[in-house]
């Protein structure tokens, strides 16, 4: 059939389900980018699985014309691990929210990452619990006033990139709902990575946390507030490409490009000691530019590949298991 070989288009990844996010929700833009990336990747629809937890973001699988599993709150990394380990031929994507991934699901997240199960974990970070209508989340800033923190939240938020680094994720990146081309580029890199990929996507919840990222992602401020990490490139940014990041002792500092010794400007090196990524990810939002792009992309055999490698080795060594010799084993005796 001709259709079998015809390359799939973005629209081929749309389902017949009505999309049920609030009008204006950042999730729409992300959905759009992901469908575009799917088409670009050229994988067959049936070989792709989207797994999610619970939250607004986690409704995602219903809108993807692939296999999908909308699971339970926080457990998607464990369920997706099972899918991928059971059948490594599948491309397994995971969509989760800041609450789903970092509150109830924090443990499964850090374990899936450290194990390096070959999963692409997309965390839509809107810094709020959307589906339950607006309580602070583990990424809400200190002092955030919400329905459950009328006098301001006392919880120091996680820095998701820090947590992913400490969890030994082999691919770590950040992008932004409304920056389609950047997001798609990051997602393409994640798709091609073999290992545990964690991508934080800043996402606007226009109902319960509108404008949470406006101070860094707003069209006007974006160029001055974001710095895109490109391997081998100097950290230069600004509307006029006039600012640079240098080290001041062990702390990063923004200086005007003009008059700065070129060698002093930090060069983004993905293969450097991960402490460099830790350092940059730790720059204070709003005060220093917020890094986006790929923080980490390391090569190492994935967990699921390792599992099947051991099975192969065991089978080569002991021969394919046979029921008779399994059961009729050990000290046997005959009763006549």
């Amino acid at each position, binding site marked *: 059939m001709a259709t079998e070989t015809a390359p799939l288009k973005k629209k081929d990844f749309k389902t017949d389900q009505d999309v049920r996010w609030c009008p204006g929700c950042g999730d729409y833009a992300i959905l759009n980018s992901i469908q575009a990336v799917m088409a670009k990747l050229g994988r067959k629809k049936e070989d792709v699985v989207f797994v999610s937890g619970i939250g607004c973001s986690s409704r995602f699988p219903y809108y993807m014309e*692939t296999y999908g599993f909308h699971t339970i709150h926080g457990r998607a990394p464990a369920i997706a691990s*099972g899918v991928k380990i059971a059948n490594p031929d599948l491309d397994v994507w995971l969509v989760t929210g800041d609450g789903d991934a970092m509150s109830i699901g924090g443990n499964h997240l850090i*374990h899936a990452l450290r194990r390096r199960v070959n999963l692409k974990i997309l965390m839509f970070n809107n810094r709020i619990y959307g589906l339950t209508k607006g309580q602070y989340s583990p990424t809400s800033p200190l002092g955030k006033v919400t329905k459950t923190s009328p006098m301001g939240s006392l919880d120091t938020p996680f820095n998701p990139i820090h947590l992913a680094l400490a969890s030994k994720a082999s691919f770590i990146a950040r992008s932004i709902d409304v920056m389609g081309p950047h997001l798609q580029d990051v997602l393409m890199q994640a798709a091609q990575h073999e290992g545990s990929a964690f991508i934080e996507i800043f996402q606007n919840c226009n109902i319960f946390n509108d404008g949470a990222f406006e101070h860094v992602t707003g069209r006007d401020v974006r160029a001055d507030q974001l710095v895109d990490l490109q391997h081998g490139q100097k950290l230069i940014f600004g509307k006029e490409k006039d600012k640079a990041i240098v080290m001041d002792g062990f702390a990063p500092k923004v200086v005007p490009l003009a008059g700065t010794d070129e060698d002093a400007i930090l060069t983004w090196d993905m293969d450097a000691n991960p402490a460099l990524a830790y350092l940059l990810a730790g720059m204070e939002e709003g005060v220093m530019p917020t890094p986006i792009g790929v923080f980490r992309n390391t090569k190492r055999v994935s967990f699921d590949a390792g599992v099947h490698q051991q*099975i192969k080795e065991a089978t080569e060594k002991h021969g394919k298991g046979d029921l008779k010799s399994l059961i009729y084993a050990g000290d046997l005796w*005959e009763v*006549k």
Partner: protein
Amino acid sequence: MNSENNDGHQVETIKQATIRFAGDSGDGMQITGTQFTNTSAIFGNDLATFPDYPAEIRAPAGTIPGVSGFQVRFSSFDIHTPGDQPDVLIAMNPAALKTNLKDLKPGGIVIINSDNFEKGDLQKAKYEVSPLEDSTLDGYRAVKVPLNKLTKETLKDHGLGPKVVMRCKNFFALGIVYWLYQRPMETTISYLDREFGQKKKRPEIAAANIAVLKAGYNYADITGEFQSQYEVPKAKLTPGTYRNIQGNMAVGLGLIAASLQAKLPLFLGSYPITPATDILQQLAAYKNFGVVTFQAEDEIAGICSAIGASFAGSFAVTTTSGPGIALKSEAMNLAVMTELPLVIVNVQRGGPSTGMPTKTEQSDLLQCLYGRNGDSPIPVVASCSSSEAFDATIEASRIALKYMTPVVLLTDGYIANGAEPWLLPDLDTLPNLEVNRPTEADKETYQPYGRDETTLARPWAVPGTPGLQHRIGGLEKEDLSGNVCYDPSNHQKMTDLRMEKVERIANDIPEFSLMAGSTDDKVLVLGWGSTLGAITAAVEELRTAGRSVAQAHLRHLNPFPKGLAETLAKFDHVIVPEMNKGQLSLVLQGKTCIQVESFTKVTGLPFMTNEIIAKVNEYLG
């Protein structure tokens, strides 16, 4: 029947004997007991065992919490329990004596390592006066053996360090017992050769243990400490090939067998927990069967990874014990809603909470039946013995795969760690568990929540199948399409369907039947799970004595087999013994309104035959 053997010793032929080896956890009592068991099995006795571990890894040497015991009963006839009271007790130290003597049969033999009764030893066991010197041992036949000294003596020329030497002393005791029961030493000698000589490349250890074993045998022979030797002739067992098996191992083998019969790879997602850990450990060794074992970060991830694997098409399993089931309940419900096959093995232990991890209990029945939000039917299958656990596992797997449902398989600490002879099955008789999966060819008609007319199972379309892309999840599903649906009548329909699917399994399992007796009898003893042995022994004894008692045992706890209520109604009294506070009784009454007599015990120990006999007699008058 008495006689004398070649050596001039008096030999008494008896039908059965029960021995308990008890010592410090460092004393090797489990190995000693296992050796005696294997030897007796190969000799041809029927047998049953009961290992009793301490709760701590290594409680301080010599203390009461550190005592480890292993009881074995062997016989020339068909037996069902490891015996109520031992005939012989081996006590390697004061703590072992203190905790075990009360169980010994009056007049029974107690073999004591008299070298371990120094002041410090006594203190650790909280004895103020040495039990060897007061009236403690009155009424028993105490045989005091300086085991330490004799072992040292035996090995003085072996060139081994004192620690290594002391570790051999359990084999001296074993030698004595072998002599006492006229057992051949070959099985143990070849075990020692294999284990230490070949596997661990320490032939000197093998040699030392063998020397000590023989020394023990000879010591018993020479010293004449014992009035007589005993002979327990072979039992008349069903012909076939046997091996000894512990319940956890039987479950592991059952799972592999089911995966092979289903032609599906086995995926086990689990987190270690006493007493279920063994299954994970054993299956981890069977990678050449294509088995994937995934040691997850916790119980929730264990079951969730299995649910993911099931979605992806594997034969998926999770193993745990009671506290783990509590943690898994939310995910079990996801499997109910998504109607994915999954076997959940619960090796029950003493509860509630952390409870008594190393003790046995049957107190998770209600949790497994009802411990989830919403109306959430899950079939429950219970194994009744260490060897039968193999069949029960295959049955649970069959139901899961055929009905697209999670299934709970219940065993318990007693089944898990107890060992018994297993008549190996004819592999051709194992059920074919192959599943029929929709393929691309079914694209036009495929409905994620369409159903098989007979079983009501939905089709298992797995990712990778072209054209069958669909999405499932924990929200209520629309009939047929499986789309999310909040429609009131749909929720009613789907709730009813989930219930009915499980109820229909009753059409696919044997009808309720009696194992012994008939509906003309006055009393029925109805059990489930690991109480089978004690109940069977009790009912056999009662019936031999002419009492009007019948017996039945439930393997399927949900749904119940057909004909249950009708049969129960025919008895004057239905006694339901359980190692919990009456959980099956509650469900039986709840479902049939027939009053049953709940007979319960929660001591962390299995029922004794005599307890059940006494109870039945209460109702027979």
